[in-house]
């Protein structure tokens, strides 16, 4: 039996959900992969109308500030810029990495930061800068590679640090009156940080939380558990992704992050500064910090996008269709805001998979 996609099992879970969902519920997921999975599996169409699933700030590319892209674009004058595919099209203030590549700059897309280090080793006469974005999922890889680069004494490899942390963002949403009655917590991030990272949030804000995997059955089970907690007025931390997520997470990955980084206040695009929500390189790794190596003075940078409601979407205040620009002025080809750019951006996912009914 293909458990993951077994339609009978899905059916019975959905039926159970219909049985208990007797009021209105707003559940927020905070993971780009959940946003896509939810729409891709067509779950929106299967859930009771009273259960609304909204997307929070879970797409790492969407929350990467415009300035970081501007820095990378400026650095492409001196260095090979390397990053993940998602960031390629995200607009900075006046351009994107995709557009500057078309003018002949050396911009490369990789699947893993290890390839970026290889590029540096293969091109000893050139500077190589990796634009390090992503949550706790990609931060351990950055840490590992920097530890390796230090051991190998690689002198032409640098990172532009842009990693962000999920628990402080959830805490920020809770302390700013988020509309959601419960959180579907990100599976990949939790594999690294473990369930324990969220306990204080559940205790402090009494909000139901369930760590969730990425199959349709994982998502439906989590929604069921959240609805159950909300009904019983019994907020707790649950884990329906125990095959991947343990209580304390991945000790080695956490240790490597701690070796290389320290937390810092961080700017989330369209949301603002969230205390202790970012990672910067600590003293022992300063020599790899592109911001310190290159004295970048941004000439071409603006403050955040105006007239774009990505911030409201990322905080779950509105859904993409409620933004006046969605689908007409703002499309994946001509995005106004970051949520329309990344394939895991809320607006891009809604645009792609659509709303049938």
């Amino acid at each position: 039996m293909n458990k993951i996609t077994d339609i009978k099992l899905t059916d019975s879970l959905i039926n159970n959900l219909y049985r208990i969902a007797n009021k209105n519920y707003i559940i927020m997921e905070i993971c780009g992969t959940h946003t896509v999975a939810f729409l891709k599996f067509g779950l929106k169409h299967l859930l009771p109308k009273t259960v609304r699933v909204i997307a929070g700030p879970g797409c790492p590319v969407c929350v990467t500030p415009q300035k970081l892209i501007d820095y990378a674009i400026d650095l492409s004058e001196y260095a090979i810029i390397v990053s993940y595919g998602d960031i390629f099209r995200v607009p900075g203030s006046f351009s994107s990495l995709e557009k500057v590549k078309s003018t002949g700059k050396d911009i490369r897309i990789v699947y893993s930061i290890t390839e970026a280090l290889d590029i540096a080793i293969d091109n000893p006469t050139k500077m190589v800068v990796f634009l390090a974005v992503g949550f706790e999922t990609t931060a351990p890889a950055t840490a590992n590679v920097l530890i390796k680069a230090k051991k190998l004494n690689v002198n032409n490899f640098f990172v532009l640090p842009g990693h962000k942390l999920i628990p402080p963002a959830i805490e920020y949403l809770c302390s700013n009156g988020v509309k959601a009655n419960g959180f579907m917590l990100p599976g990949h991030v939790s594999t690294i940080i473990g369930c324990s990272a969220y306990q204080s949030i559940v205790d402090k804000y009494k909000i139901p939380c369930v760590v969730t995997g990425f199959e349709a059955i994982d998502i439906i089970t989590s929604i069921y558990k959240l609805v159950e907690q909300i009904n019983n007025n019994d907020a707790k931390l649950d884990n329906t992704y125990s095959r991947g997520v343990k209580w304390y997470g991945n000790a080695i990955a956490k240790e490597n992050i701690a070796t290389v980084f320290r937390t810092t206040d961080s700017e989330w695009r369209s949301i603002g500064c969230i205390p202790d929500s970012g990672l910067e390189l600590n003293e022992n790794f300063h020599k790899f910090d592109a911001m310190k190596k290159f004295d970048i003075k941004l000439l071409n940078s603006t403050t955040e996008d105006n007239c774009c409601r990505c911030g409201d979407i990322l905080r779950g205040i509105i859904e993409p269709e409620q933004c006046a620009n969605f689908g007409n002025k703002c499309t994946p080809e001509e995005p106004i805001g970051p949520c329309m750019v990344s394939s895991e951006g809320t607006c891009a996912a809604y645009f792609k998979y659509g709303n049938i009914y």
Partner: protein
Amino acid sequence: MKNNMNSILLAHGSGGKLQSDLLEKVILKYIKNPIINLLEDSAYLSCFPKGCKSKIAFTTDSYVVNPLFFPGGNIGKLAVCGTVNDLLCIGAKPLYLSLGLIIEEGFDYEMFEKIIIAVALEAKSAGVKIVCGDTKVVEHGKGDGIYVNTAGIGEIKHYFSPQKIEAGDFIIVTGNIGDHGIALLSERQKMKFKTPIISDVANLTGIADILFKTSGIHCMRDPTRGGLGGILKEIALKSNIEIEINENSIPVNPGVNSICEILGIDPLYLANEGKFVIFSKEEKVVSLLRRTKLGKNTAVIGRVIKKKQKGEVILLTKTGGKRIIDIPRGELLPRIC
């Protein structure tokens, strides 16, 4: 044969001795027929059939694939298959191809020969004659190894078109989707898998022969760039129909599926180079196609629900949900996590 030469020089394209050497010792060594052998400025083609009553189909395509060699084929094979399949799709019997080669200075001579051999073998297998061609060499750094263009002429035997599609038509795909896209991606990224994914690049003359003899075929397309999802949406928009396809019925190699999951790519949008999507009034053609080597995984993946619609393509997901299939946008990029 290396001819004391390791790589292509600019002089191979400048009309002198080296160019005629390249032509005679490589290209015409493998590609020969009474038409091209004349080496005239244009090919003399007879009208077909006698009396020119039938219409001709004429198409062209340029091939800039990277990498040039991939599991299952190379740019030469691709350049023949792609144009032959384009002719077959509209119901034409492919007859003649042209071969345009733009080679980058310094390109490996042996690789060039391998590409020409692949062109010759595939043309033979597809029953088409390469009747004219051109070779140019561009400076080092101004090309990507080699670019190939083929134009093709065929005799129209049947009339297949999106306009002929009717409500109730079965939508059939002639095998696993996405193999070509993943074969290229894994080669490009140097990803190693226990069982490598092989491109499906193939000329579909055998499949088309069956379809040409079967009644009730309304439309055929080869889902190359843009994949199955892209082509269905394009047809739906062109013929104002509503399509419903079933995710469970779409044949996908499990290896391709796993790689897609890891990379966050939808197999529906991956390129294919040896598949047809068929709109057919009847289902019976499926069993005929399944008996062929290239069509053994043929499957009915959905139906045309209604005519006079806005061109919606709806996917019934494996979990029983529904979502729309839109045209692909931008390059397929890997995701972060």
